[in-house]
């Protein structure tokens, strides 16, 4: 039994629900707001009365339980897995649960700005305890209510699947019957949590609660949002990074186009505004166009003529959650070829030393052999299938916002500052996101929507076109890394050196594997300023470093005449038994665990078919991942036959959904490694839609993916990102075995994939 302190009290919770005007406690969201629709959808009879138990749940008088999913959903399935955690501790039958997406409410779900954040694979990890406590304390309150009603000691009351029992007296009652009384009980200071072996829902696959809505095309995304009198807004951005708006040349003419209401400039941030870390925005000055319908507005957008001018270089102080950081934004129109030249130049110079163990320089001098390899990767666009959009209805000092975003707590202060209204006057509904991948942690478009609504004094839905979405910035940066290894005459590894850099950030993680496993180790880094904006992209930095590092270790193991898995396990053994340094940020035993699991499940070492295999493993975002990838070259094209994946994310809350995440990460990673690329010429992104930006298609996806989880009882960690980075390495290593050629720069298809 584990006793834990409850972190919420009833008073703050009631205050929170009162503040929200009851809007989120009553009725469901705008998409399925009426009871009959909900009954049809869930097959459950809705209760006559709901009783609020705590921030996360309410119980109906008929025993139906409604559980809030606090965090926004972008496909990682938290809307199902978070309520599963509550339901398990509450001890309720999953059949009797309905799930609601919570609105943004820092009082109800504390921890702003990250209390309701989806990203960094933190959702389940950070909510594990609060969700369990919510369920367990509600169960405790129901037991108390029953004990009082039946006049028996609370310790004698047991629960099972939504029913309270008192064995001695033979009394029993459904949760619904006790809900009213339970709502009067004060929240316990401490509650008892289940032992993992007693979980009935956690660890047992449950279908996506939105499955039926998705396959029948129900409105649920931001782009689907509707409101009486709503207008459609679009924006025109500068044609290149390094440019800004000077003037609109034909506003009158465009205003007279059919269905068009207005054309005007907007300015997302005021000059003296100190930007937050997620306020990144290359184009704070835009032309807005507002019309009655999407097609009319789109046509008007194309007709807008504006004059653009070069930006001036600037030095800004950005507020990174209370810490000031200086950011230099250079003027000028940038080119990929210049970025590459700059990166090569800095690679040739000493970088900023991030970690040094032993005497790496001395060891390299003594080496019998030095292996040195360089890796690179281009900018990537997120390309969420649902382009950026947001609904805004700004009236006086009130703002009602609705749309897809990962971090409402990150943007609410920005919007409050821009509209000069208190944060409490802003209501944010979180719609299901058509993908996020990090992109929707940045919500400048929400501010744009609000400014447009304010100007036209009407509700508006701001829609980005695909071209806007792809050319708006917030990209995965371009990176490079050079690895060096020093070997003695017996092929023993003497020293290891990594130098990594990028535009505008370095991808280096100095304390990750193989740091800690090698006596002489040096890590250096550099970065180059740019006006092309970047942002978090599924496993930031790891999404490059894993591929580079794991390719290099592969090449090194070959050079040393060792099996690639055995070589990694040897290094991990050293890091576990006798680690070098104090700051290694991985658990060597769990790292080795996924390699061993993937070795077993992929039948590693047994020569079977005519396909070629590569292995890679990585640790990031608190979860360990390893892949073995088998591929064939068919008609000159790589075809992945199978990926065997092993993961250690602790307790797996919803196994089939976690498997789906891993499969998706594998497909997405293979696509990005083979085809993903965005280049720049004079500040202009060279791709603006899917006819140019190659995305992986079904015929290019692996024929088979097998996902295995390490079984343990460690608290769960994230699944959205960790399986993604190492697939780049597994693919590169398999490509080498298939073609005889190492692949160093992404996208691999650009290097030409050929046999021999």
């Amino acid at each position, binding site marked *: 039994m584990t006793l834990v302190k409850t972190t919420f009290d009833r008073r703050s919770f009631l205050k929170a629900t009162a503040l929200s005007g009851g809007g989120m406690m009553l009725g469901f969201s705008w998409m399925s707001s009426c009871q009959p629709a909900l009954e049809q959808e869930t097959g459950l009879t809705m209760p006559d009365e709901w009783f609020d138990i705590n921030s996360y749940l309410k119980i109906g008088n008929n025993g139906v339980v409604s559980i809030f999913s606090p965090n926004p959903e972008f496909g*990682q399935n938290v809307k199902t897995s978070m309520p599963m955690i509550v339901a398990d501790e509450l001890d309720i039958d999953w059949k009797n649960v309905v799930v609601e997406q919570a609105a943004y409410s820092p009082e109800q779900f504390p921890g702003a700005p990250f209390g309701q954040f989806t990203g960094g694979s933190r959702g389940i990890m950070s909510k594990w305890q609060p969700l369990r406590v919510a369920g367990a304390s509600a169960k405790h309150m129901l037991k108390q209510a029953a004990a009082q009603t039946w006049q028996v000691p609370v310790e004698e009351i047991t629960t099972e699947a939504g029913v309270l029992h008192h064995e001695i007296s033979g009394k029993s009652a459904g949760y619904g019957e006790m809900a009213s009384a339970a709502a009067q009980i004060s929240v316990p200071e401490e509650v008892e949590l289940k032992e993992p072996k007693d979980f009935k829902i956690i660890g047992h696959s449950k279908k996506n609660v939105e499955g039926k809505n998705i396959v029948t095309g129900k409105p649920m995304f931001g782009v689907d949002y509707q409101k009486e009198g709503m207008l459609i807004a679009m924006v025109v951005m500068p044609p290149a990074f390094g440019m800004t708006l000077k003037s609109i040349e034909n506003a009158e003419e465009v205003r007279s186009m059919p269905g068009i209401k207005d054309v005007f400039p907007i300015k997302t941030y005021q000059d003296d505004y100190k930007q937050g870390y997620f306020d990144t925005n290359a184009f704070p000055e835009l032309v807005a166009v507002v019309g009655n319908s999407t*097609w009319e507005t789109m046509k008007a957008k194309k007709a807008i003529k504006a004059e653009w001018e070069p930006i001036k270089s600037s030095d800004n102080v950005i507020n990174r959650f209370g810490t000031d950081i200086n950011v230099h934004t250079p003027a000028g129109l940038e080119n990929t070829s210049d970025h590459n030249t700059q990166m090569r130049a800095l690679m040739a110079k000493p970088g900023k030393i991030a970690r040094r163990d032993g005497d790496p320089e001395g060891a390299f001098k003594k080496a019998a052999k030095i292996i040195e390899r360089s890796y690179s990767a281009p900018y990537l666009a997120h390309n969420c299938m649902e382009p950026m959009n947001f609904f805004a209805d700004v009236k006086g000092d009130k703002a009602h916002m609705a749309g897809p975003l990962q971090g409402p707590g990150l943007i609410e202060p920005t919007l409050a500052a821009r509209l000069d209204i208190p944060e409490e006057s802003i209501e944010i509904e979180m719609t299901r996101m*058509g993908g996020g991948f990090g992109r929707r942690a940045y919500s400048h478009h929400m501010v744009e929507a609000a400014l447009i609504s304010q100007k036209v004094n009407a509700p508006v839905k701001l829609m980005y076109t695909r071209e806007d979405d792809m050319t708006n910035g917030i990209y995965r940066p371009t990176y490079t890394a050079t690895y060096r290894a020093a070997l003695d005459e017996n092929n023993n590894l003497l020293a290891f050196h990594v130098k990594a850099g990028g535009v505008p950030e370095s991808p280096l993680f100095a304390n990750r594997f193989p740091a800690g496993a090698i006596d002489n180790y040096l890590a250096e880094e550099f970065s180059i300023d740019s006006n092309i904006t970047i942002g978090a992209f599924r496993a930031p930095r790891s999404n490059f470093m894993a591929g580079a590092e794991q390719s290099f270790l592969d090449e090194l193991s070959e050079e040393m005449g060792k099996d690639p898995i055995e070589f990694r396990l040897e290094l991990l053994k050293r890091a576990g038994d006798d680690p070098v340094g104090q700051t290694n940020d991985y658990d060597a035993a769990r790292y080795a665990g996924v390699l061993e699991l993937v070795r077993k499940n992929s039948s590693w070492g047994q020569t079977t078919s005519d396909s070629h295999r590569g292995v890679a493993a990585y640790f990031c975002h608190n979860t360990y991942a390893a892949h073995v990838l088998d591929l064939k070259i068919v008609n000159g094209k790589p075809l992945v036959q199978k990926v065997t994946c092993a993961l250690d994310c602790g307790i797996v809350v919803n196994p089939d959904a976690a498997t789906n995440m891993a499969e998706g990460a594998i497909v997405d990673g293979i696509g990005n490694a083979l085809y993903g690329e965005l280049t720049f010429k004079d500040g202009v992104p060279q791709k603006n839609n899917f006819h140019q930006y190659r995305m992986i298609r079904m015929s290019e996806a692996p024929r088979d993916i097998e996902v295995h989880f390490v079984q343990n009882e460690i608290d769960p960690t994230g699944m959205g990102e960790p399986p993604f980075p190492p697939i780049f390495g597994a693919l590169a290593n398999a490509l080498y075995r298939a073609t005889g050629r190492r692949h160093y720069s992404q996208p691999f298809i650009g290097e030409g994939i050929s046999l021999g």
Partner: protein
Amino acid sequence: MALFNLTINGKKQQVDVGPSTPMLWVLRDHLNLVGTKYGCGIAACGACTIHLEGTATRSCQLPVSAAEGKNITSIEGLSENGDHPVQQAWLEHDVPQCGYCQAGQIMSASALLEANPNPSDAEIENAMDGNICRCGTYTRIKAAIKTAAQVK
């Protein structure tokens, strides 16, 4: 603007829009059928797939003037209760992640099975390669199509 007579999901509808307006926006903006999604606007992603006389068609490239007098089915009209074999197979395999591409995927898959009830892997890939899923659910989509083919 002009009046167009359309047959959508078996129902006669009239809309007053410009003749070049793509069916995607007629459905979404004028008929409140928002299951059909915008992804690229240039027939490169498949998110907007509908059936035009039973054939999978990219509605972002289909002007309303070319749709008049033809039978159009959108995701909302694929089945009465969301129980088309393809929809059921999608639920059985719990295919969606974010779900945004899935209406288009389902419309492409259902048109394929209508024309070819027992497609090979290569035929499935051929029919589905125009539909992007950024979340990478392709292996489940393929498995679901095979399940649906068995049911049909």
